[in-house]
């Protein structure tokens, strides 16, 4: 794994999270000579600390919805055909509405998305409680997304990285880029704390660190860290069959087209209620989001905020006096329009962006890896990604 670093390669992927590992995997599978470098350890950033949600619900029709659905297929293939145990399940997801107004707002939301190819369904309280008897009877109804689900994000990163390595990719941890050498508008090499590698392509898959790498070639990227705090419960018997998210949170935090995402002020703190029971039985509870730079400490206030929200939706947690065993905070890779930043960069041949995935990186990782591999290997992508080009920010 460590060993001496290669002197030359075709593609260098910077960033050992889900995007980087998946990209390295698809490139290696396509026969490319690929190096994946990570300044810390694999999965030590946002990919290693999140709820592991795979969701199509929020996606507006168009490339984002196409990408999310295609990514789930990649996960299917990876976990079923290739038998990597990554705890991927299309268990379904309920976006729960606490009020009639929320429920009404969801009607056009569902209609638009279904026209775009999704298969969402509005369900009323009775059906909701029949399917999830532990939910609070005070809920009004929900949007049911049968294909949404979850994956163990850590296992997903390691599986892609290990699979990439099996296909010949070289992985270097504790390897941090310090400079990028370009000549005549072409990427030539990347210099790191462990030495220099000549390369034709550099893929910036750094998450919140992406601006630092882009700065090396003089590019400014509008990515801002948005801290997300989560709680983790003790392991418990199955109390939920599907992922639960409250409609208010989706409206506040995700680019659903419901709220005006541009109006989401950077000073705003949002409190959501998301609950995902892992295969092992722990509940992952999200979360409090705020903009505090790269401060990844948790706060006292997030504990009651998250707990109160989840107790309203899942009163059974009080009955069983479920214990919280851990909290963590990581970053949601926020972009102003909450769309990813993908693809080639004008004026610098060989430099490719793969970041700005907001809070959907885990879901989108495989498809982004596949599309970027196609971009390099065959020069085009099966799903158009032009609207995610960095040039949109002018």
């Amino acid at each position, binding site marked *: 794994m460590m060993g001496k670093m290669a002197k030359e390669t075709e593609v260098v992927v910077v960033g050992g999270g889900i995007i980087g590992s998946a990209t390295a995997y698809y490139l290696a599978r396509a026969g490319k000579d690929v190096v994946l470098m990570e300044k810390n350890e694999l999965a030590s950033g946002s990919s290693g600390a999140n709820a592991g949600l795979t969701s199509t619900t929020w996606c507006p029709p168009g490339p984002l919805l196409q990408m999310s659905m295609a990514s789930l297929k990649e996960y299917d293939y990876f976990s079923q055909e290739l038998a990597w145990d990554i705890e991927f399940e299309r268990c379904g997801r309920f976006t729960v509405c606490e009020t009639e107004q929320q429920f009404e707002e969801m009607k056009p939301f569902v209609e638009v998305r279904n026209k775009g190819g999704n298969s969402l369904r509005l369900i009323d309280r009775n059906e909701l409680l029949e399917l999830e008897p532990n939910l609070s009877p005070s809920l009004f109804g929900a949007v049911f997304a049968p294909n949404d689900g979850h994956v163990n994000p850590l296992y997903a990163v390691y599986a892609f990285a290990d699979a990439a390595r099996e296909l010949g990719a070289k992985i270097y941890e504790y390897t941090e880029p310090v400079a990028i050498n370009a000549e005549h508008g072409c990427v030539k090499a990347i210099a790191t704390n462990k030495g220099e590698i000549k390369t034709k392509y550099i893929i910036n898959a750094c998450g919140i660190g992406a601006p630092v790498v882009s700065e090396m070639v003089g590019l400014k990227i509008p990515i801002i860290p948005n801290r997300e705090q989560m709680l983790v419960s*003790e*392991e*418990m*018997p199955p*109390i939920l069959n599907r992922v639960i998210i409250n409609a208010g949170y989706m409206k506040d935090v995700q680019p659903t087209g419901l709220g005006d995402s541009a109006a989401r002020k950077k000073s705003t703190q949002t409190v959501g209620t998301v609950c995902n029971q892992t295969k092992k*039985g722990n509940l992952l509870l999200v979360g409090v989001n705020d903009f505090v730079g790269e401060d990844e400490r948790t706060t006292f206030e997030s504990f009651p905020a998250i707990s109160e929200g989840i107790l309203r939706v899942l009163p*059974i947690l009080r009955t*069983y*006096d479920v*214990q919280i065993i851990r909290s963590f905070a990581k970053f949601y890779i926020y972009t102003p329009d909450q769309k990813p930043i993908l693809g080639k960069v004008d004026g610098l041949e060989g430099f490719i962006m793969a970041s700005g995935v907001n809070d959907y990186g885990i879901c989108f990782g495989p498809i982004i890896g596949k599309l970027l591999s196609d971009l390099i290997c065959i020069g085009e992508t099966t799903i158009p990604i032009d609207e995610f080009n960095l040039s949109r920010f002018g």
Partner: protein
Amino acid sequence: MRIIDHPILGRIEPERTIRIEVDGKMIEALEGEPIAAALVANSMRLFRFTKKYNEPRGIFCAIGRCTDCVMVVNGIPNTRTCVTQVEEGMKIETQYGSGSIR
């Protein structure tokens, strides 16, 4: 077994005893002592079976850190018995795996 007489600590006079139910059986406990102590005093050492390998477990650290001595207490699984005090009529059950939902 209780250590009633002790050369340094002297004799304990069990003042107030209470009764708790362990897997359906009533046993005596001393007010204020942790559940784990009451069980050990009644020669019970096996507190739970693990989820993956179904292995028996009991007290290990006795100060609430290792979480190995957890049992189902009044219906609540994963209760650390070494730091949870007994209460009159408390219902304690051997825990299997991560417990179950009634």
